[in-house]
């Protein structure tokens, strides 16, 4: 545990002395802020338009739950934006250690590969968490200004879902980072892999055949929707946990095989 913590601390230090961390944080904030503004405007206009219509034609008041829709759509946007951001967090994890020769330091120290991997995984996850913290402001903003007061549950489950989704993507990204010495290659391949996950999700949504049914179970992006609606489905948690486990297991095997491949 002490060793995991040592790696974790070093990872966090390394993130915050490199410009990449600040670039990622800033770009993520700008994009999420822009989308939040857009989504909020769209739904407010839509609800105002519906209210005006019902006033003119004397129908019942419209049933558009603006706060819930904004919050849910905002989560949806966040889950897509992180596909572009996470490769930049994971690309250096092992690729850079291999390039700089510091892998030799780690592997000749009395510390197990599992401890190294866990430290790095937790470090990336913590950085991702820090990335999400400012977006909490938007969600709280909706919560405070909603009337009647919106439920807190979906916000909590949404962030839990984001962390699970992010964890899965990070585990995959770290594995890809072990395969090369070049950060750019690691980032590109990771991004490509995330896009494939996205394509799987799109094709799963577009119909109802048996294959698409299976795909929608496997699509880790699809499982996120439940969380943004406030539903914590055990099967989704299991899918995410298995995905994280698989990613870290592959990383472990890849690191072990380094010794034999060299």
């Amino acid at each position, binding site marked *: 545990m002490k060793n995991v913590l040592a790696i974790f*601390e070093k990872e966090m230090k390394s993130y915050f002395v490199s410009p990449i961390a600040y670039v990622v944080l800033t770009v993520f904030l700008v994009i999420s802020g822009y989308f939040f503004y857009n989504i909020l405007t769209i739904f407010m206009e839509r609800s105002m338009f519906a209210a005006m219509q019902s006033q003119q034609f004397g129908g019942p008041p419209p049933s558009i739950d603006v706060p819930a829709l904004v919050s849910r759509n905002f989560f949806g946007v966040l889950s897509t934006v992180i596909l572009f951001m996470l490769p930049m967090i994971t690309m250096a994890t092992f690729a850079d250690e291999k390039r700089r*020769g510091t892998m030799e330091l780690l592997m000749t*120290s009395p510390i197990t590969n599992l401890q190294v991997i866990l430290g790095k995984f937790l470090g990336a996850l913590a950085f991702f968490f820090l990335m999400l913290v400012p977006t909490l402001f938007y969600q709280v903003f909706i919560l405070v200004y909603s009337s009647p007061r919106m439920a807190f549950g979906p916000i909590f489950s949404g962030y839990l879902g984001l962390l699970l989704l992010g964890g899965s993507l990070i585990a995959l990204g770290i594995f890809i980072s072990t395969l090369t010495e070049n950060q750019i290659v690691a980032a590109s391949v990771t991004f490509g892999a995330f896009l494939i996950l996205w394509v799987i999700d799109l094709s799963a949504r577009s119909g109802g055949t048996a294959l698409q049914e299976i795909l929608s179970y496997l699509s880790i992006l699809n499982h996120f929707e439940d969380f943004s609606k406030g539903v914590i489905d055990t099967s989704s948690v299991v899918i995410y946990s298995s995905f994280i486990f698989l990613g870290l297991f592959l990383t472990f095997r890849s690191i072990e095989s380094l*010794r034999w491949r060299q």
Partner: protein
Amino acid sequence: MIEVDHLTKRYGSVKAIENITFGVEKGEILGFLGPNGAGKTTTMRILTCFLPATEGTARVAGFDVFDSPMDAKKHLGYLPENPPLYQELSVDSFLDFVAKIKGVDSRERRRRIEEVKDRVSIKEYSNTLIKNLSKGYKQRVGLAQALIHDPQVLILDEPTVGLDPNQIIEVRQLIKSLSGDHTIILSTHILPEVSMTCQRVVIISKGRIAAMDTPENLTRQLQGAERIYLEVKGPESTVKTRIKEIEGVLRVESTRLDGDEAYSFSVETELKQDVRSKVARKIVESGYDLLELRAMSMSLEEVFLQLTTKEEGVRGQ
């Protein structure tokens, strides 16, 4: 302290090292000498548990590097050829990190960091980012990293490569001052470095041990041969056999010179045997033209080259 027993490492069908056996006593500095690609780094990587051996065993501080790598790693400090440094960290936070993963007790950590910084004299750079240090100072941080947990065994892979002459002298003195407390293996392809710092030398060539002795003995044995150089106009093979007939001649090599029918010969002779006049007379008596004749003394570098490229010269022990 270090026992290496019939170590072999193959990469696919290529043998990087073959049947290497040697031992290092406590407090001794052993020089590992060989040209690039001889297998020095491979041997060191096996000793540091970084690579598994194909055959044979190695023990560090009494622990088998394959069966109990965690124990072995606790007792060894390793400085690879390129010092493993996190450029973006300061010297202090880097050493703190290494101390943690090397298992230095948290109460001792602060003290140890100060001690090693003192030892390699980088105290004034405690808060400097490693990337802003000069190459010599980076090398020192690399050494500090290897020393942080006060290991019994130090393995240093080409510690002076790429440094300027002043830095080289400083690093050598530093290494020398570390012996006694630590058992050190040091690899290099620079011969004088070995004679200056090491008590015993293993010369390794093409993955095999070519010689093993003290530096003094090795140079004495190796310099037990002298060489003369001559250029002769005449048939190559006949001249060669004529020269070989002379007493004290060990070996003759020839190469064709540009133009004419001239050849150059390199003649190796036994120690203290000046055969120049005999050779000159013989050539002239045989009716060939002697174009040039001079004595060549073997420099240490040549001796080393001869040993590592031909492996014939002298075998120690």
